């Protein structure tokens, strides 16, 4: 019996050789027949040459994570074969260049040697481009994808449709030759009956759910545009830059994007723009976020709304600049000296990134403080089919922002405008530069914003600012604090934040065949919803923290905020994100082994 519409396909190759575009073409074609996709981009910090790879998991049900096991391994170079063949399942398919002398067991795998050079030569002759032979090597990508889809018995028409959507603009002149190469590849596969040997198959489905196929950085960028962000700064850094570049590439939405000289300038400029009444943000990763610490304190003491998007990557220092980690939580909670009000929140996936990006600006303006949006590389660079974005339930809330008329009324009543007027909820009416006169200073200040070192004022003003943290906990909707998945009264509660959500949700159903398990995803990390979380976890038989960092930073935070110690931790810090298999095995081990930490190490 054939396995239909459920498998993991992986392509690997040297960085810069077209691995990403192959994966995107394959993913897009599978999505076009109604299937769900999750793809993970894994690359070296290098421009050309080092090994990169991209697994695409395909399913007829929503899918949110990658798998360690590979059903179809497709490549045109040897390194990928040697690195990844151990992960190919029995009877899995391996597509490789027939000119390579490889040592693969034909009894274990379905081997598909492809005549890449013959196909490229034939296409070159047909289109009279023999002299471009070396340039045309890039067609190895299309040939690899065509071979894969052909083996999976999907009609070539679907691939052609995708190619037509990919080879557009100045690339459109390459369309015909690529289609030609795709057809030749299909003929080769069929004439050698490789498709009959395959245990996997693709079949178009009736699914007509309204989906988008996108990455975390793109979803976040679109969220920013929808949410009214009109000023974005950045200093180039992996994996955050993609988001800023997306905004820069769409000037028609009027977002002013400034590439600054460093991340200090990036955050200071964003704060400046916010003072002039514009929704402003900056996007960075760990090293840049470190440089932003001092200015966060300035935004805190001056109560300026600004949103900082930190796409975490492997640290400390340069760490693993293109790899995965959730290592910045504790730093984000405390970055900067002394204490000031701030919000730290984390989206669990690509879809949440879109809505939470919008909400971040609402929170920043309502509570007049810096908001830290903690995403990570596993969300930033992955692609996924998610429900199309819908603005019908989205609100824009600008809080106590005064209109010119409001300001006039206030001035008539109170005489002078006080930017830092003491209020019960800690939030003062806000005006923008250009509307009226006010002062800000990084020094402690009086209600007008003038420097004030007087001790009583200090006590009152500090308390006024920090009071906003209680206001937030009181006012915030529960959906912005946490989400619970799975059975209500479970024996075992998994706890995580950020991108671990995907592989956990993809495992939850299977786990519940053996144990009663649910999953608590924490979204709001500061101010921490201590009482709500305490009541959710205090009766659990076993709590299992799952985090992509060394010490279990969320577990430590929960201990601090609720007093509850999480005795089981599934941790991973090798720079690769959690696979579905790892979460499954990790939870089973956590439940059964007398061992506090389960360390995961999968990934190449």
């Amino acid at each position, binding site marked *: 019996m054939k396995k239909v519409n459920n498998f993991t396909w992986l392509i690997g190759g040297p960085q810069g050789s077209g691995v990403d575009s192959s994966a995107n073409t394959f993913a897009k074609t599978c999505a076009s027949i109604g299937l769900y996709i999750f793809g993970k981009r894994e690359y070296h910090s290098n421009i050309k040459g080092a090994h990169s790879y991209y697994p695409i998991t395909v399913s007829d049900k929503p899918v949110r994570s990658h798998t360690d096991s590979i059903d179809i391994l497709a490549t045109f170079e040897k390194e990928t074969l040697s690195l990844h063949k151990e992960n190919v399942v029995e009877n899995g398919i391996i597509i490789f260049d027939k000119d390579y002398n490889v040592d693969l067991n034909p009894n274990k795998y379905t081997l598909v040697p492809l005549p890449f050079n013959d196909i490229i030569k034939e296409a070159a002759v047909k289109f009279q481009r023999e002299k471009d032979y070396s340039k045309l090597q890039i067609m190895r990508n299309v040939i690899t994808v065509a071979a894969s889809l052909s083996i999976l018995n999907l009609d070539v028409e679907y691939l052609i449709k995708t190619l037509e959507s990919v080879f557009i603009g100045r690339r459109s002149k390459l369309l015909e030759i690529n289609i030609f190469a795709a057809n030749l590849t299909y003929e080769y596969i069929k004439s050698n009956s490789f498709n009959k040997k395959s245990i996997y198959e693709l079949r178009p489905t009736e699914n007509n759910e309204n989906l988008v196929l996108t990455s975390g950085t793109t979803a976040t960028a679109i969220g920013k*545009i929808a949410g009214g962000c009109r000023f974005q700064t950045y200093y180039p850094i992996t994996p955050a830059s993609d988001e800023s570049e997306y905004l820069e590439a769409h000037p028609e939405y009027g977002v002013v994007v400034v590439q600054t000289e460093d991340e200090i300038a*990036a955050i200071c400029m964003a704060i400046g723009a916010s003072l002039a009444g514009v929704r402003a943000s900056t996007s960075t990763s760990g090293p840049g976020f470190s440089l932003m610490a001092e200015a966060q304190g300035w935004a805190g003491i001056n109560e300026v709304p600004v949103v900082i998007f930190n796409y975490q990557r492997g640290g400390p220092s340069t760490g693993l600049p293109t790899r995965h980690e959730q290592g910045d939580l504790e730093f984000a909670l405390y970055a900067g000296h002394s204490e000031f009000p701030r919000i730290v929140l984390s989206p669990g996936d690509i879809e949440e990134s879109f809505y939470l990006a919008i909400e971040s600006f609402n929170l920043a303006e309502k509570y007049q403080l810096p908001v830290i949006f903690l995403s990570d590389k596993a969300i930033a660079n992955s692609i996924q089919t998610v429900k199309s974005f819908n603005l019908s339930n989205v609100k824009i809330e600008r809080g106590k922002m005064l209109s010119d008329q409001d300001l006039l009324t206030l001035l008539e009543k109170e005489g002078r405008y006080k930017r830092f007027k003491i209020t019960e909820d800690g939030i003062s009416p806000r005006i923008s530069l250009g509307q009226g006169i*006010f002062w800000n*200073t990084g020094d402690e200040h009086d209600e007008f914003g003038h420097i004030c070192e007087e001790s009583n004022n200090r006590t009152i003003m500090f308390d006024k600012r920090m009071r906003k943290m209680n206001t937030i906990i009181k006012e915030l909707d529960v959906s912005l604090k946490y989400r619970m998945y799975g059975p209500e009264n479970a024996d075992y509660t998994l706890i995580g934040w950020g991108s671990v959500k995907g592989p956990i949700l993809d495992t939850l159903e299977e786990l519940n065949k053996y144990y009663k398990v649910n999953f608590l995803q924490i979204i709001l990390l500061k101010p921490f919803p201590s009482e709500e979380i305490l009541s959710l976890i205090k009766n659990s038989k076993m709590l299992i923290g799952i985090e992509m960092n060394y010490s279990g930073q969320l577990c430590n935070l929960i201990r601090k905020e609720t007093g509850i110690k999480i005795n089981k931790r599934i941790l991973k810090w090798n720079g690769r994100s959690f696979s579905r298999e790892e979460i499954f095995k990790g939870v089973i081990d956590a439940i059964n082994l007398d061992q506090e930490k389960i360390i995961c190490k999968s990934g190449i």
Partner: protein
Amino acid sequence: MAYKISDLKTDYQSDWCPGCGDFGILNAIMSALVDLQLDLNKVVLVSGIGCSGKTPHYINTSGIHTLHGRDIPFASGIKLANPELTVIVTGGDGNTYGIGAGHFLNAGRRNIDITCLVFNNGVYGLTKGQASPTLKLGMKTKSLPLPNINEAINPLVVAISCGYTFVARSYAYDVKHLKEIIKQAILHKGLSLVDILQPCPSYNDIHTKEYFEEVVNNSKRIYKLEETGYDGEVKDPNNNEEIQQKLLQAIAKSQEWGEKIPIGVFYKINLPTLTDRLKERYKKDINPSKDNIEQNGKPTTDISKLIEEIEVKRYIRG
């Protein structure tokens, strides 16, 4: 009704030392504003850290007193978000040429339309007189335990070389001259630097009022460029030859220091500002602060085209 200097004073008490050059600068800024009669709601003073950083608190316009060395990025964000605002930066030499040097340089690449006034006294006054980036090698001001071990930078040359389109120097105690230079700098469309020689009576016992105003060879040490026939302005910004000539002239002139110290406009050219460049990129005037992002709490931005770009297109064979 026109406003006067007295209208510009806040009730916030100054805490500068008696005799500080900063008082002269404060007066010159206020006099310039009175002369220009700009709408005070649309004027923003942005400062860094140090004695100069307190300036905005003394003037009745909006004042943003920021972090050490970061005044230029804050000011840039403000100006880009609302180009209708007049943005004036008041920083010190340590602030701008030391900790903020990276921003000082890179602002030049943007030619953003803001005015940078640098209170240059050669020392870090507020921390009790350490050497600043403009104190020359071997100098020993009274609070230094040993002579300065670093060479000084020449801020005028730096500004000219990295794209400032208005580069001038003035002197804190010549309020009239300084006021005129500040007015020109504010009115100039593009990035302006006014480096202001500012005696620090508490910590710099070398560059004192007496030093700057001393008569050397029958004339004051400080002299005005405009009185010597020097013309730093590029008349035709499309004429590369003229630009080269004026640049070299300005760099040569800015090396003059010692017996004679020139003040005035060293270099000036009219070139597209960052706002002009953005206008070209966006094909319209860009003022993000005027963008209506919501109506009755609902977002007004139509993102349907962006969604279409990433939408999964089902392909059903015909």
